[in-house]
């Protein structure tokens, strides 16, 4: 039997959890209410890429032995969408709340900076994963996709969406206007995702561009994720996991520091 003090501390813990849980729930509902735009739209976009690129390139390109180009393309497209949507979730929620002014409702609460971070982070991860799973389910209609190692897939999907969700928080805190956020998306996120080997293996590139690609953290997320499907990749998945995990830790620490100091949120 548990004594009263034990029950009390559990009750206190539950109450303490309710704050961050409420924020997470609000963030999830926020994108779910407009799922047509936040889930269906990116799924359609990814499928258009799939149809067009596989139609044009299927008979011309073979990246790995015995892997058709369409099958090669699908994991890249899934991961690209996971990353872009994780970023979009936290960044657009924050910039909207800032521009509308309703971020004040969160700033007035006893939520700590860690709770704030976790709520936005987890919501971003979930949005990314929901979009990724939807693309996977639809893509299964078109082609058989093998899975070599599910754990690599899960690990890279989680860490990748966490990394981009965190990056989205930083962008959302930093940007004051929608055009600054658009610049973030168009000049950083888009080039990095498109040049990360979603549509090609970097081994098909000239040596110089192979080296450049290896400086792109997105390359490791895509390559590691793809490894989970084919058991083959451009680099060792363990190395990729360390790069992605390290990048996430660095960005998470920067974000926590920004949130703790109240940078751009509390003057």
């Amino acid at each position, binding site marked *: 039997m548990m004594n009263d003090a034990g029950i009390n501390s559990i009750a206190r813990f539950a*109450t*303490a959890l*309710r*704050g961050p*849980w*409420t*924020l997470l*729930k*609000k963030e999830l*509902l*926020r994108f779910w*209410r*407009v799922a047509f735009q936040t889930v269906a739209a990116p799924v359609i976009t990814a499928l258009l890429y799939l149809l067009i690129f596989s139609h044009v390139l299927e008979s011309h390109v073979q990246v790995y032995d015995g892997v058709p180009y369409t099958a090669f393309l699908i994991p890249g497209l899934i991961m690209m969408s996971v990353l872009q949507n994780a970023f979009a979730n936290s960044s657009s929620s924050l910039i909207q*709340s800032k521009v*509308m*002014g*309703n971020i*004040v*409702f*969160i*700033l*007035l*609460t*006893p*939520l*700590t900076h860690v709770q704030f971070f976790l709520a936005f982070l987890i919501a971003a991860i979930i949005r990314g994963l929901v979009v990724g799973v939807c693309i996977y389910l639809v893509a299964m209609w078109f082609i058989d996709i093998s899975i070599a190692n599910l754990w690599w897939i899960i690990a890279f999907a989680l860490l990748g969406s966490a990394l981009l969700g965190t990056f989205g928080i930083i962008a959302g805190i930093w940007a004051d206007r929608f055009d600054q956020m658009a610049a973030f998306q168009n000049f950083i996120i888009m080039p990095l995702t498109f040049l990360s080997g979603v549509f090609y293996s970097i081994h098909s590139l000239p040596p110089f561009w192979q080296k450049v690609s290896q400086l792109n953290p997105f390359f490791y997320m895509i390559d590691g994720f793809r490894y989970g499907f084919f058991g083959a990749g451009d680099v060792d998945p363990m190395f990729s996991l360390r790069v992605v995990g390290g990048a996430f830790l660095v960005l998470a620490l920067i974000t926590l520091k920004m949130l703790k100091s*109240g940078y751009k949120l*509390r*003057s």
Partner: protein
Amino acid sequence: MPAIKINGVHKHFGALHALRGIDLTIEQGEFFALLGPNGAGKSTLINILAGLISPSAGEISVMGFDVQKQYQQARQLLGVVPQELVFDPFFNVREMLRFQAGYFGRGRENDAWVDEILEGLGLADKAKANMRSLSGGMKRRALIAQALAHKPPVVVLDEPTAGVDVELRQMLWEFIKKLNREGHTIILTTHYLEEAETLCNRVAMMKQGQVVALDTTSSLLNKFSGKHLRLTLGNVSLPSGIEQLVRHAENGIYTFALDDMAQIEFVLSALRTADIKVLDMQLNEADLEDVFLSLVGESGKDAVRSVS
């Protein structure tokens, strides 16, 4: 233990010294008004109290909890109604209130209180309406409801009635008065001086980042116990002897501040000598506006005029 204790608070915004050493103690159960012209520092002070900005020096505590070092406890005890009409367009009124209470650790057991707020603020039939679809007045009520969702013992209202029609203002004040009777400490900033006069038991007046008067409403009024003579004269030039008594002049209506009744005869005879006809006449007691104007001066006058 006081509801709010403000101790030597300074705030610099770059070169601007927005708060210049504020000391203020507000006891539990008070209905307290913070008055002052635009730019006096009222909102800056409230934002520091709410933890939205940090002070350059000094400290503020809510029921004994420092708003910076013990911000979780302090914010738990504080409900702040922001000045701007902000809202979250994704949710309806009841959802917003549930979320707001949830951030403070309150769950379904709080629903009865949420209903009470909705009822008290006349929002019950809008509970399922999206925030976006509400009129300005309704949004203002929802904003107040959000600040109250976690049932805070100390409630701060920053210009709650700016741009709100008379009927709604009455209703809001009835509700806030009820909260005050039930033991909530109420602090408000307002431009409507008659509101502070009828509602608040104590008043602080701020000017250029300092508190220039702090007293009970009644004794502030006693200190300025003069009379006001309002004369409608039309477009005239006043004789020099009585010009310095003019407190306010607009559209041919002149308000003279008089120390005693004998001065009435003085003003009227001066007008007669100058051959100026009195078209209408009113005699009033001094009100908080006079106290405000005499302490806060010309800059305050403009602020008051702009909203009245």
